[in-house]
């Protein structure tokens, strides 16, 4: 077993709210191997973005990492001093946000933003950095990069901008990229291009990616493994094929069934009743229990831990054998 590029252990993030603290992430653990794409899905507010921000160390007050650790290629990074963490950001972990329009500073040329980033992380001089920037733009598929590089963000279309954002994330050739809904703001046709681009880059560079999205289709097509989040917890994590085709966790099942597909002829979509609880009001036991058809007494009382089931892990009392699984829980595949 090689060292995973990223290893997250019991990561807990809390927000200080007026009435007590909100636990946005509740002891989540997962690993990402080199060159692997981990898809993260889940309802809005499940904690997908917070996970990304916590890994890269950008949780702003009133939030804080309340526990657990983040290990990048064997080095623990969640407790680094701010300046050391800054050097990790961008250089070793790249980040792509959802909205390409607002991610770029409208007042600076593309070239300025690229060169600035490159020079922050490398020793290149201005001219070399510019060459590098042009090469990067070329790599992400911007036609005629020498000409376009001095444009301003507003002169680019949405798809182009997202490519620039990706180029910016790639500047220092990070080993790990967090892509937080990189295609949600884009049109279907452009979305496909961006997904293809991310995939290609991973393959060519061996970069690992954490891909956060709502779109199961994107996950299915891009990811190697997928984690399903619910109310700040990971409820199921496993290979895409398994989780998408045969989800185990009732929530994952519901989620997969709720997606209308281009095939099949379901009259009605599978529907999970109710809505995700607010973080202030997560019920005891399994967070999903109020919406779960299969819920039984234990679900209301005891919180299920992730248990290994073959290739995957599920956090559901339906699947854990109380006596033997505890010790196994949390061991990565």
């Amino acid at each position, binding site marked *: 077993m090689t060292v995973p590029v990223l290893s997250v252990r019991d990561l807990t993030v809390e927000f200080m709210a*007026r009435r007590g603290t909100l636990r946005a992430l509740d002891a989540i653990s997962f690993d990402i191997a080199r060159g692997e794409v981990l898809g993260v899905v889940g309802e809005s507010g499940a904690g997908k973005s917070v996970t990304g921000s916590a890994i890269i160390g950008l949780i702003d007050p009133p939030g804080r990492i309340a526990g657990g650790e983040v290990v990048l290629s064997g080095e623990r990074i969640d407790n680094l001093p701010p300046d050391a963490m800054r050097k990790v950001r961008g250089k070793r972990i790249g980040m792509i946000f959802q909205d390409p329009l607002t991610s770029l500073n409208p007042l600076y040329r593309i070239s300025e933003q690229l060169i600035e980033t490159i020079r922050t992380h490398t020793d290149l001089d201005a001219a070399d950095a510019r060459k590098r920037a042009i090469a990067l733009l070329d790599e992400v598929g911007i036609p005629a990069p020498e000409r376009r590089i001095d444009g301003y963000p507003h002169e680019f279309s949405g798809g182009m901008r997202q490519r620039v954002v990706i180029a910016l994330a790639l500047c220092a050739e990070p080993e790990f990229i967090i892509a937080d809904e990189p295609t949600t703001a884009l049109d279907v046709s452009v979305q496909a291009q961006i997904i293809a681009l991310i995939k290609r880059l991973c393959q060519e560079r061996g970069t690992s990616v954490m891909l956060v999205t709502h779109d199961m289709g994107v996950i299915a097509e891009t990811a190697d493994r997928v984690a399903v989040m619910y109310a700040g917890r990971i409820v199921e994590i496993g290979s895409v094929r398994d989780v998408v085709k045969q989800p185990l966790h009732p929530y994952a099942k519901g989620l997969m069934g709720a997606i209308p597909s281009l095939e099949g002829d379901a009259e009605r979509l599978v*529907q999970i*009743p*109710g809505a995700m609880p607010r973080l202030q009001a997560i019920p005891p036991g399994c967070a999903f229990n109020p919406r779960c058809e299969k819920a039984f007494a234990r679900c209301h009382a005891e919180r299920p831990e992730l248990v290994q089931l073959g290739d995957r892990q599920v956090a559901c009392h339906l699947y854990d054998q109380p006596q033997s699984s505890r010790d196994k829980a949390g061991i990565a595949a």
Partner: protein
Amino acid sequence: MSMIPPPAAAPSRWSRFRDSDILASFLKSKVTMVAGLVVLLLFLGAAFSPWLAPTNPFDPATVFLADSMIPPAWQDGGEARFILGTDDQGRDLYSAILYGMRVSLVVGGLGCLLAASIGITLGLLAGYLGGRTDAFIMRIADVQLTFPAILIALLIDGVVRGVFPKASREDTAIYVLVISIGLSFWVQYARTIRGSTLIERNKDYVMAARLVGLPAPLIMLRHVLPNVIGPVLVILTINLALAVITEATLSFLGVGLPATQPSLGTLISIGNKYLFSGDWWIVTFPSVTLAALVLAVNLLGDWLRDALNPRLR
């Protein structure tokens, strides 16, 4: 079908307010609470000045010139009757401050209200109707901006006297000030309202209202207005402070309120004359009151702005 949520009694207004973030953020900030207290005290003082003040400084029959320039009670020559001393006409300064604050607040308040109503109306029209109406109203705003409050007051004051030569200063001064403040402050409201209206009018709930066939004025009034009024509150508080100061400045220029019914500003500009002569109390006490008022109102405005801004919560 999906779950039917359990019946919940609609929370009362008060309990909703109690649970709201606004109250919480108010209670969290000590400064804001102190400011709130100061504002409350000053407002109460102004509102109940006839009961709180030992004398009525606006009634010339009760003001004795012989009592003029008496220093505060604790100083040599001070008299217990006049805690904070008297001014050049023999008015009890403490009473004069209470009454003056009332005048200042009325002028500032009415002026701001006038400004807000003009601004809101024009801003809504400009933002909602757009096109030529918008361009026209915004040009008026430009013209308006070239006349700062002071110039407007000087001019309006002159005009009022020209048009109503019979009217005495006491009758007209308040209107002159209110109109001047109203006319010079409305642009800010109009611009703010217009900005938010431009955003709001394209929102789907306005579309939905149009779909129901509501006429434009009703949509503006019922749908758009409540949603754009928020920032106005903030401007209103800050402008109130500004208006009180403007009134003081105009008194200094001689077009403020009549000296027989001094506002805080008039008191300051009277006291200003006696600054060098050692009669410090005439200028000091009204100034401190004014500064406290303005400061506290501003702090409240700041807080309100932060509290109403969801992004800052």
